């Protein structure tokens, strides 16, 4: 099954905010196991969720932005 983290994502193409749950790769893709690419329900643009190292970097940058 896709490794999608349940949270709100913002589409980098059209700006739509959406719930990532259920927007991951479809099981018909043989590479869907562990895939963290989500599809925007509005424009269908696909992008990987910022989890793992990228998620930690995002959290660090957000913390610095909030408490410089």
């Amino acid at each position, binding site marked *: 099954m896709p490794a999608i983290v349940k949270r709100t994502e913002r589409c980098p193409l059209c700006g739509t905010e959406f719930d990532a749950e259920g927007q991951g790769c479809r099981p*018909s893709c*043989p*590479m869907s196991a562990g895939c963290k690419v989500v599809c925007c329900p509005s424009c269908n643009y696909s992008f*990987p969720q*910022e989890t793992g190292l990228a998620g930690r*970097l995002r959290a660090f*940058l957000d913390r610095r932005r909030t408490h410089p």
Partner: protein
Amino acid sequence: MTPPSDATCQAPRASPLDKQVVASARSVILVGNPNVGKSVLFGALTGKYVTVSNYPGTTVEVTRGTATLDGEPWHVMDTPGTNNLTPMSEDEQVTRDILMKERGYVCVQVCDAKNLRRGLLLTSQLAEAGVPFALALNMADEARSRGFHIDVAQLKEALGIEVVPTVAVERKGVAQLSAGLGAARRSTFTPRYDDAIEAALAEVESLLPPKGGLNRRAVAMMALVGDDSLREHLAANVPEAELARLEDARRRLAARYPESLRFVVSRQRLAAVDRLHDAVVTRSRVSAASTFARKLGGWSTDRLLGLPILALVLFVAYEFVGVLGAKTAVDFLENAVFYDRLVPWTEALVRWAVPWKAAQEFLVGPAGVPFREHAGFIIGKYGLFSMGLSYGIAIVLPIVTTFFIAFSILEDSGYLPRLAVMVNRIFKSMGLNGKAVLPMVLGLGCDTMATMTARIMETRKERVIVTLLLALGVPCSAQVAVILAMVSGLPATATAWFVGSVVATLLLVGWLAAKVLPGRGSDFILELPPLRVPQAGNVAVKTLARIEWYLREALPLFILGTLILYVLDRVHGIAMLERAAAPVVVGLLQLPKEAAVAFILGFLRRDYAAAGLFMQYEPFMKAGTLTRSMEIELVVALTTITLFIPCIANFFMILKERGWKTGVWIAAFILPFSLAVGTGVNLLMRWLY
């Protein structure tokens, strides 16, 4: 809407349209773009006693509550975020339907003061629809801190309605907004369109009955631009003969413009909004910069200026990926890191950890023999480490990393949707409409996902054409990166041959497919965000996320591909394959026999195949000793591999999405076709190059 708790009415929860009119209770509907703080304002107005239910016939949630505003009981409804009263999504349709079917309400439009232009686009539509409303400039504090100075008095005068700066999370401005709701009125701001549109509007308005909360002009506009979601409403309320007149008026108007009416109307409306925006937003240093960004944004989608900007963007990306990524970074990782250090260290580690000589030789080959000359399992000609990991990490990774950085910059700057607009024009010439652009652009990321998104096309014709074109000639991000790396070693004329061959093939096949397959086109509109300077942090995070995704997806397949090669090598299968493919690969394409393996393994991942070719020609590219014949070989190989059958993941997705018959037809067409194009390019280049 749900009535106040102290009112007497019957269970309206499941059916917001069957509202019971309650004496002394008025209705206020909150509307606004997505993520502007509507729900926060709703909470500030109503407190916590709210009901949430799906809008009838949809999965879209609508929140209702009650409030006492200025001493009077009010129904309050929070609607899904919308950018347009002519809906493009289910959410937008729900909001439009609520506004159209409710009676006797007033609206509060919640607008993000930081993005006034986007908010005013919706304001102009509410004004045009004759809805009484007030405008809340929410997040006013953030707008001020970012250098936006909005002349509220002038905006109020221009719109003819109450305009209140608010900070909903701090309840600032909420009392002033509530106090003015009873006196909410229709806006005097009405965008005027060109004469043809105004005449058509007048004609269609006269055919429509007065209906609900939106006036005839707004409904006429929706009908004119071909809003499908309105069809049921029109069929129920307009006699058949007048529907035919309406359709006739729409067709006559549409024939006047090369673009869709939806696009033309949006553009003219936006022009009116821009004039108002520029009049009320003070030009501080920040806003002056944003004005330049807006101009640049306009130029980047202009028919003439857009092309040189597009060429510049592609050139910079090519230099960045092809030179920095493919030359400097690959050279460092491949030689200084992998072959000079990691390979000898791994070999030494294995010899130290495995005491048996036979096992050592199986894993890392005989001592003292260069690894490219033996068949070690880990370190060897087809070793999992020396080939699989070095392909994945030393060659493709630096190239895709620089490509991902370039792509993230395009994404974060807001240029990507503009790129879609420019590409749209090209695809239109192929019989495709704008919606086809997105799968094509997405195909540059991952063809497999893009094949899935071909679902957004309305007709089977469009879905099949898009799937075919994606499978045929849209290279995925990893392959684009390796292609950029390879063409960076070629002279400009050879590069032009490659690009020209692929683009010409795509245009020809798309045009032919559009002619052969029956069906009709459809419209597409994408909201363009403002251009901005990309944020280094955002680019870093986006790039890292893509690299993680790439490593997770590609590396296992690189290892698998290497394992297959290793086994084939041990059973002399590679030589057999090369002999079997020689009539085509050597005879027709005039490529070295080793290219056959690259083509076959390209089915696992296209970039794996491209990386194999890159390795073969890299020493000559570096030394600048590519001969004319090698340049032709490279162009022919690149063209054929780009057009070759899709990777295994994409192929399975095609079978799943389009059905096995169509999938097999697509593959059966692509295989000989790509080889035929490669042969044609080879013959032409050897004659003309």
